[in-house]
């Protein structure tokens, strides 16, 4: 048997190919959002799709986040399988009413009569000096809401693979694409199989401390693990992948082996996903811990423009490594 064909592509292209295949596979699927068509997508994800699939299925919307997200909910209830693109998580705040009060509740309020098979994609995260209205990581806020599922593809495989199972899921699924990942490049199988959207993944095995990250902070955690390896510390890195519902089992098993945990989160510390994960570890693996759970989050400040301030506000490999050393009781 010959090895499967491999292709070299970017995270952006992996997302695009996932959308293409979804459009080909199911005629109920359509993409809508601001500038997804003629412009080619704010971040270039949907470039070329308008030409290939036409205006009915690649729908440019006006700047009307509440209306088109709500329309996505309605279309899902009406038998379609919409993929709604919101340019960034900051702009989804204009649609939060629809996401929270309709998408997340109608299934329950209707006593189980109306599932919402909707996918909403959006960009998240900082690092590009676009300041305090374009840079935040609000996944933690949205992960607060029962009825929603949240995915954070941090790898090419997940960028390519998560959309199909998200569309197959009968619930509203939010997919967060970190803005710093679009140009990530690597190789994938030309015809990759399905990925699951239930489990966290151990992306680097280790034994002394578990670094838990998601989305844009996975590479930060990996860089920290490399730095720690240089000092003889073997850190395990977990990519959460699924932000709601959380895969407690993978986290708890890892922490039960390493006995130490550092949670890395680009959200603000107070009320963050990192806080939730830390609490779960404390509740369910307290006696396995050799040190308090450490958190490395964004500084509690709206994101400043100036580069040195923005970098100081974000989790960095050095701060993650330092937190791991604190957990290990190593000075310096």
């Amino acid at each position, binding site marked *: 048997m010959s090895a499967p064909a491999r292709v070299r592509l970017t995270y952006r292209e992996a997302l695009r190919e996932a959308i293409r295949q979804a459009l080909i596979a199911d005629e109920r699927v359509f993409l809508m959002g*601001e*500038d997804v*068509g*003629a*412009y*080619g997508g*704010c971040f270039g994800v949907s*470039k070329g799709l308008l030409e290939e699939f036409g205006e009915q299925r690649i729908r*440019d*919307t*006006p*700047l*009307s*986040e*509440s*209306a088109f997200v709500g329309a996505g909910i309605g279309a899902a209830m009406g038998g379609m399988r919409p993929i709604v693109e919101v340019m960034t998580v*900051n*702009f989804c705040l*204009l649609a939060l009413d629809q996401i929270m009060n309709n998408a997340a509740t109608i299934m329950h309020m209707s006593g189980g009569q109306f599932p919402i098979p909707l996918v909403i994609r959006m960009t998240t995260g900082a690092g*590009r*000096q*676009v*300041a*305090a*209205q*374009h840079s935040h990581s609000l996944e933690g806020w949205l992960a607060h809401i029962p009825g929603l599922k949240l995915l954070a593809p941090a790898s090419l495989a997940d960028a390519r693979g998560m959309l199909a199972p998200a569309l197959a899921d009968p619930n509203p699924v939010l997919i967060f694409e970190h803005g710093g990942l679009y140009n990530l490049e690597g190789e994938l199988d030309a015809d990759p199989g399905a990925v699951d959207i239930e489990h966290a993944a151990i992306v680097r095995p280790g034994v002394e401390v578990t670094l838990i990250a998601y989305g844009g902070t996975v590479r930060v955690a990996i860089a920290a693990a490399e730095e720690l390896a240089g000092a003889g510390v073997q850190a395990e890195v977990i990519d959460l992948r699924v932000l709601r519902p959380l895969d407690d089992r993978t986290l708890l098993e890892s922490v039960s082996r390493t006995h130490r945990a550092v949670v890395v989160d680009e959200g603000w510390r107070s009320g963050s996903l990192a806080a939730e994960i830390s609490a779960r570890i404390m509740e369910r693996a307290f006696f396995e811990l050799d040190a308090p759970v450490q958190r490395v989050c964004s*500084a*509690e*400040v*709206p994101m*400043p*423009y*100036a*580069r*040195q*301030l923005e970098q*100081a*506000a974000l989790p960095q490999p050095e701060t993650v490594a330092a937190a791991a050393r604190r957990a290990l009781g190593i000075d310096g």
Partner: protein
Amino acid sequence: MSAAGRLAEADGRHLLHQMLRVRRFEERCVELYSATKIRGFLHLYIGEEAVAAGTMEAIGPKDTVVSTYREHGHALLRGVSAASIMAEMYGRVEGCSRGRGGSMHLFDAGTRFYGGNAIVGGGLPLAIGLALADKLRGLNRLTACFFGDGAVAEGEFHETMNLAALWQLPVLFLCENNLYAMGTELARHESQTDLALKASSYQMTAWSVDGMDVLSVREAARRAASEVRDGGRPCFLDLRTYRFRAHSMYDPELYRSKAEVERWRSHDPIPALTAQLQDAGLIDDAGVQQIERSVADEIDQAIAFAEAGTPEPVADLERFVYADAGKDAAR
């Protein structure tokens, strides 16, 4: 009035100077962006200068300005210094927002410039609030609110129009209708493309203006401003203009043809006004050169100021998240 009389009355040379300040400033910004001195998003106003130059003639020092992320021209012509704007884009403490905001978030209390707002439509509710405060405080001044055609599709626009008219608030709504919201053409984002008609359905006076002609903009803005001031009610201008450059520095401009851009470039407000002034004998080549030199000096000095600026120490990162007790921004 004769063309020459109109030009003289409006101080055409001054308007030319103002437009050139914006144009040349932004041309230098492009170079500085390529040189990575300026980072983040940079939205250029090139092509739309007649709107800022004309409208600012109707807005007095006591009035209030609320703007968008395409606001270098608004800030500059409002009176925020070129130096503090440039320092802001360099991310320096000497910047008008201390380097915290960048290109999209220029703020300046001293000139009542209430911000570059990068949420489309985000400034509209703020503007009626500022006007409401003036009305409640018995202050006779207006709030000028700039926004793009794209904002007209947002719920915040419609909620704001309704409240402004319902409460008779002194707001001058200045819609910079450059025919595109990023890559989406007006007719592809609005069911009713006559934006003045749309605004008038909220029971406010509204009309469309040739936004490429600075004299027309100036006259319309003055008439609208006196409607707001004397009538104590909102007014709306649909200023038809065009952006010559890409939406931002990342835009490959797949959605419009080069020919279309060229057509609009032939209506460039700056050469148009220059020719009018020359025809009327109000300026000669030397006069234009003199303006260009003074503009170049101003920008050189702004860049030198920004280059000499101070990066804010990282230890100060968490400043300005909360105001100190007793601090009141109202002026």
